[in-house]
């Protein structure tokens, strides 16, 4: 962990998965299990004092457990795909909402946009040329969840994004 917001991102994500769905990551030092399924990626953009975007990718195998626990589904009952995706988007929304006051202070107002699930399952190539402001990897039984945040600190960022 060496980016500006790595530790905050990890802590908020860990707390969010635990509080929303009783899912705890394995020890960060543990080796991630072999990933056998494709990942799913969502993004949530925010505007305000500064603007940015937070990405979350998880193994698709995490979604049934995440959504079932959020909904309190009975054991063995798997929520439909649309609810699994909705639960995933909400988890990202909660992570973003709880991260922003930690990195920007509680006096600042941000508009957190609706999370979007990315069709091609990967962070868009255009972000490769930017340096992230933070990243974190959480290891679950089903594989790795990865978060990365990009921030534009230009003073006119909020205006130009509006």
């Amino acid at each position, binding site marked *: 962990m060496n980016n500006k917001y790595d530790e905050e991102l990890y802590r908020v994500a860990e707390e*969010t998965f635990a*509080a*929303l769905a009783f899912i705890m990551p394995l020890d960060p030092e543990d080796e991630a299990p072999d990933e056998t399924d494709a990942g799913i990626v969502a993004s949530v953009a925010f505007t305000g004092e500064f603007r940015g975007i937070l990405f979350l990718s998880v193994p698709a195998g995490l979604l049934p457990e995440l*959504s079932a626990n*959020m*909904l*309190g589904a009975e054991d063995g009952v798997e929520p439909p795909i*649309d*609810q699994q995706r*909705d*639960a995933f*988007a*909400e988890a990202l*929304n*909660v992570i*973003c*909402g*709880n991260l*922003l*006051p*930690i990195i920007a202070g*509680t*006096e*600042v*107002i*941000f*508009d*957190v*946009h*609706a999370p979007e699930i990315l069709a091609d399952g990967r962070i868009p190539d255009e972000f490769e040329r930017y340096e992230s402001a933070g990243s974190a990897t959480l290891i679950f039984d089903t594989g790795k969840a990865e978060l990365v945040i990009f921030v534009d600190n230009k003073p006119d960022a909020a205006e130009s994004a509006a």
Partner: protein
Amino acid sequence: MSLNILIVDDSTVVRMSIIRVLKIAEIPLDNVFQAANGQEGLDVLEDNWIDMVLADINMPVMNGEEMIEKIRANPMWKDMPILVISTEGSKTRIERLEQKGAKFIHKPFPPETIREVICEMTGIKHEQQV
């Protein structure tokens, strides 16, 4: 006394999980209405008797803050109990909502918190206390 509650949130899963929490918290419920944004919420209010509104802030079409302003501007609903359930972390915005007469619960939240706040806001007693 049972409550007619309106839940306004753009996430189906969040609306479903709030209903689940209301049941876990043993809040006496009559009808639970759902809306996916502030405008839909106002439409439900127009057509139904609602005792309390539970709303998110960041939503498409009309956000929760604008919906609250419109509710307060209507004499029929000016005293409507409104509970905002959101990830909002800005004290500035939370204070602004509280000045409009809304209470605030931060997401994620434990069931007992929602029970305490709803009982306090509506004057109902928790079923186990009756």
